[in-house]
């Protein structure tokens, strides 16, 4: 295998990639603007949800006449009550005129709310507090009438609530998405060059030209692979700077990040970029291997569409609270996302990182070997004909 030939192929592919506007858009514009804009947009949406006024969820319907005690509690909790019958209340909740409603049948109270609506969930909390307070007043009255020290009975145990979460639930969701967005950007950035150097070359008829040269399949594939890796790494760096840069700026301006600010030291930045380089090695092999089977650019794009969604999977798995383990360190996608999260949280596990790196090298090696074998098959090379 000649390094000079590999370098010549690499140079040719890089020149070709950098002169293709469609590929450049995916490599530079998407990571530079799309994902940072999504982060900014989502942060503002979550900020608005988090800091919404009580007036957005304090409209509660009731089907019973209130007494002085209930009125006083309602005033104290700043609840707007609307009186109507059950059918009307149901329609009003559906139409969004009220956020929840309470029905009363003798001494049985029922709260109706819509779990799909955040405002309704907030209103349910208000309604529960209101009924709980009313229950305590009634219990106090009954016990006092029976000459029992109501305070001792009602407060036989004392319950207090302390929120121990250091992060806001909204901010945690966005922080978990940061690695996913960067990995998605790298995936998109690798996809186009990978298609261009394989199926694109086949479609344009230039692959046959390459095959006439005195170069080995392994030199050809490694040159192409390295060009796709270089594109992915370039995109990774742009994506890292744009995504974390926009996040670091926005976290200073929004209250949802007040308790969950992330800081990026030089060493953690370098560690994250190294993880992204390792991912670039993986995704470049995967995209080239898949697109090698396709006859045309369009066919390869269709074949690679599911790959573009793979980075989302770790986001859902991480929602169920999975932590880094040695087994997970060899599971592609999950390992990359967890590694970045660990670096952000300052919990870098060197063995996890090493296993992730080694397993990726093995996967990339298998993929390159497979592609070299594929390029010996005429049905793959001449499928255009």
């Amino acid at each position, binding site marked *: 295998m000649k390094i*000079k*030939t590999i370098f*010549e192929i690499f*140079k*040719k592919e890089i*020149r*070709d990639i950098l*002169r*293709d506007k469609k590929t450049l858009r995916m490599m530079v514009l998407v990571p530079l603007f799309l994902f940072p804009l999504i982060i900014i947009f989502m942060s503002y949406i979550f900020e608005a949800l988090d800091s919404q006024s009580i007036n957005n969820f304090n409209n509660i319907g009731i089907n019973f006449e209130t007494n002085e005690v209930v009125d006083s509690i309602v005033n104290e909790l700043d609840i707007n009550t609307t009186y109507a019958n059950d059918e009307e209340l149901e329609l009003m909740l559906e139409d969004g005129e009220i956020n929840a409603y309470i029905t009363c049948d003798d001494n049985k109270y029922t709260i109706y709310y819509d779990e799909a609506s955040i405002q309704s969930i907030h209103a349910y909390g208000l309604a529960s507090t209101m009924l709980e307070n009313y229950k305590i007043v009634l219990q106090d009255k009954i016990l006092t009438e029976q000459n029992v020290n109501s305070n001792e009975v009602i407060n036989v145990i004392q319950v207090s609530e302390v929120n121990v979460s250091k992060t806001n639930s909204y901010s945690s969701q966005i922080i978990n998405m940061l690695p996913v967005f960067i990995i998605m950007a790298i995936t998109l950035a690798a996809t186009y060059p990978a298609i261009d150097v394989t199926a694109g070359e086949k479609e*344009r*008829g*230039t692959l*046959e*030209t390459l*095959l*006439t*040269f*005195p*170069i*080995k399949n392994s030199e050809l594939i490694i040159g192409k692979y390295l060009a796709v890796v270089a594109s992915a790494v370039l995109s990774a760096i742009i994506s890292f700077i744009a995504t974390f840069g926009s996040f670091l700026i926005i976290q200073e301006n929004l209250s949802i990040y007040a308790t969950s600010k992330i800081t990026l030291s030089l060493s953690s930045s370098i560690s994250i970029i190294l993880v992204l380089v390792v991912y670039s090695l993986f995704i470049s092999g995967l995209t080239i291997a898949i697109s090698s089977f396709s006859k045309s650019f369009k066919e390869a794009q269709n074949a690679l569409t599911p790959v573009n969604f793979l980075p989302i999977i770790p986001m859902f798995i991480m929602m169920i609270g999975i932590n880094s383990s040695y087994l997970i360190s060899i599971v592609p996608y999950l390992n990359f996302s967890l590694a970045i999260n660990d670096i952000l949280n300052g919990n870098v596990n060197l063995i996890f990182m090493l296993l992730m790196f080694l397993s990726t090298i093995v996967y990339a090696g298998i993929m390159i070997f497979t592609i070299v074998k594929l390029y010996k098959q*005429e049905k793959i*090379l*001449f499928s255009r*004909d």
Partner: protein
Amino acid sequence: MIKVENVKKQFIKTNNKKEKISFYAVNGISFTANDNEIIGILGPNGAGKTTLLRIIAGIMNATSGEVSIDDMNYKENAIEIKKRIAFLSGNTKLYERISPYELLKMCGRFYEVDDKEIEKRINKIFKILDIDNFRNNRIGNLSTGQTQRVGIARCLIHDPKYYILDEATSGLDIVSSQVILNFIKGEKEKGKTIIYSTHYMEEAENICDRVILMNKGKIIAVGTPEDIRKKTKTKTLRDAFFSLIGGVKSED
């Protein structure tokens, strides 16, 4: 010398009923192309010309039989053989996003030509083929004729001993075709060997030393154009071809 010995190439295709059918695109072809000779491979579409030339150029492997070039075969000396060959085909396209200069420099390096020598050869080739005035334009922006000249230039950069030209004039206008034909004649004068396929019989008749007529993967006649005309008692290679296959049937 290029020696083709009993070369066969089997393909499998799927018919309308989705049944797999195997067939021989090239079926037992043998011939020798001597040094300083232009050999024309002639035949209609589907005769097996492209497959045969791809096998000779080492792009495709034969199912059986052997191609040897200067007593070397592809199994053992593929890289060395490819250094002696230039393959130009109607199917082989050029990189549209690079310039003729960048293309030739890259090709020269693939053939391990020294950088100084590459520069010298590029200047000479560009002058001969009149490429100088668009040497730094992107190939994608060139006209068909200009692109064809760049294609020829690509073949010349490593000064090959053998040219394998597959339907190189197919689809070209009369001027662009003439550029290719002049190139073939010029290289023959320099002592090069050219194997040249076409379905334009008249074109081959004018420039080939020997022709091989192919039909359905097999050789149906071989010899000088004159010999074949005499044997078939016809006036042109076209008539000779139809005489050899027994006329045109509707199924053909």
